[in-house]
């Protein structure tokens, strides 16, 4: 009986130890902290933290800045996800055409931004969308469009961030779509052709329904990623400017926790983020189970 556990335990011990210490325990500890007023004084002496029940959560839902951060984050997701889906699907459909030359080269090229890191790529983007010296406004000027001051104008700052994120993930999502497209049996198209279906009809009635699992995966990944938007607005708009129009939930968590050291409050807001992501994950599981019926 003892021996039955010994070998597995030896293999599992390192993982169990670090995952317990840095993942499982913190999940509960964070919940506990969120029920206290842990702040800068508590950092010096833990005894200074008081248990305050759900007060942090109550305060969060009355905190206009936090509500604004939720709104901004949702706005970002609503803009970014459909745009990323449409563009990446279009790109994948084009790349999948049988006569495309240099397909690998295209795939590699489109993929490049995806492997970049958020900070470096944000500094580059900052320079691309710069009002007077940026290449974007310069190109717009060829078409007679006066480019705005993207990052300083509250109306446009979020668009600049959406542009960055879509540009960066396009190649990755298109790659996932390409893999999905290759799984669609050729016979389906041939059958449709015999029935006289047009290209548009084939895409609408064969390609898009059969790509549904890929679309679901991309949507969920990008929604969850979108909820965690952080480094891009931190860099591009100096932590959520102008006028907090690009401040996201994670920026709120970060600022409260590590700038103002209101750690109880910050932990509570991280649990709200968790709730959002949890809902999205549940929806994914529901949908995925339905998918099997196809």
């Amino acid at each position, binding site marked *: 009986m003892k021996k039955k556990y010994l070998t*597995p335990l030896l293999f599992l011990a390192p993982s169990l130890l670090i995952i317990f210490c*840095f993942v499982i325990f*913190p999940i509960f500890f964070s919940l506990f902290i969120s029920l206290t007023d842990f702040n800068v004084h508590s950092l010096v002496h833990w005894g200074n933290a008081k248990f305050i029940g759900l007060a942090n959560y109550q305060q969060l839902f009355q905190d206009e800045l936090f509500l604004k951060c939720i709104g901004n984050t949702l706005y970002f997701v609503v803009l970014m996800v459909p745009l990323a889906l449409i563009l990446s699907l279009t790109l994948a459909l084009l790349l999948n055409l049988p006569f495309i030359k240099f397909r690998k080269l295209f795939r590699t090229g489109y993929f490049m*931004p995806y492997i970049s*890191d958020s900070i*470096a790529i944000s500094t580059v983007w900052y320079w691309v969308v710069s009002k007077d010296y940026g290449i974007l406004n310069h190109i717009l000027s060829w078409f007679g469009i006066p480019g705005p001051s993207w990052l300083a104008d509250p109306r446009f700052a979020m668009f600049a961030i959406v542009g960055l994120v879509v540009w960066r993930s396009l190649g990755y999502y298109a790659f996932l779509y390409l893999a999905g497209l290759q799984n669609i049996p050729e016979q389906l198209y041939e059958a449709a052709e015999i029935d006289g279906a047009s290209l548009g009809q084939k895409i609408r009635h064969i390609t898009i329904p059969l790509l549904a699992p890929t679309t679901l995966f991309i949507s969920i990944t990008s929604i969850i990623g979108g909820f965690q938007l952080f480094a891009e607005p931190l860099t591009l708009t100096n932590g959520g400017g102008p006028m907090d129009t690009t401040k996201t939930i994670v920026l709120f968590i970060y600022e409260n*926790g*590590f700038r103002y050291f209101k750690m109880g409050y910050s932990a509570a807001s991280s649990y709200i*983020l968790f709730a959002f992501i949890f809902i999205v994950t549940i929806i994914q599981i529901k949908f*995925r189970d339905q998918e099997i019926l196809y």
Partner: protein
Amino acid sequence: MRQTIVYGEPRKRIPPKELTAKLIVHFLLIIGLISTLLPLFWMVSTSLKTQEAIFEIPPRLIPKHVSIENYINLFQQEIDFARAFQNTLIVTTIYSIGALLIPSLAAYAFAKLRFPGRDQLFLVFLATMMVPSQVNLIPNYLSMKILGWLNTYRALIIPPLANVFNIFFLRQYMRSIPNELSEAARIDGASDRLIFFRVIIPLIKPALATLAILNFTGMWRDFLWPAIVATDNSMYTLQVALYTLFGQNQASTTFGVVMAGAVLVLLPLFIIFIFGQKFIIQGISMSGIKG
């Protein structure tokens, strides 16, 4: 009559309509590719410009005079970039090794050993993947503070090693190895340690290579955790150093130095991508489809 030996459909002449369509599609793809790569190209180009040339209106895509002054400046900043590069290299390398060894041991237990509670434990591990990492930031920061690990390599390496995805990924791969192989070795009297190192590890080499690349590039890109636990200049990672450099130069005439820093941060990632593309794409499609 050689003409009759045409493969598949006869395609002697491409109808002009089809030819136009092909050209248009290629044209669109090339335009898309250029706009995708343009920001990266512009980063390199800006980093090679002199200070005055950066602020030319209209902006010049290719610098008139190529200058490496930004790169020289980069290493004469308040922030020690060479040191940051070294820190990142040390942290990512040690992390990548640990992130192969520790999860592959656990994956072996989950994939090849039988013990009560195995599947339940695995489910608990999987369930933690639903929790966004931001939830753990404050507790882990406090742990680092109590342990006295703030501004040490340990803080940068050890907490990120708690990575359930790696276990999941390797377990999936190990399960695809037929049990007969390990069982045969077991009948011959091999211990689990021997089976693990001599039978399993050689068979999962492609998965290990994929994971090594994903972990290395993932760690190279990590920003939030290092920004919290490495607050001392000498412990900055490249990401934190670049972010700080950006903060100091964004509004001034020295933006070229930021672009030089970005090139330095991105170059290793691009090199790894070009050479390890096969593994990266394999890994992404595996993790992507499994979801």
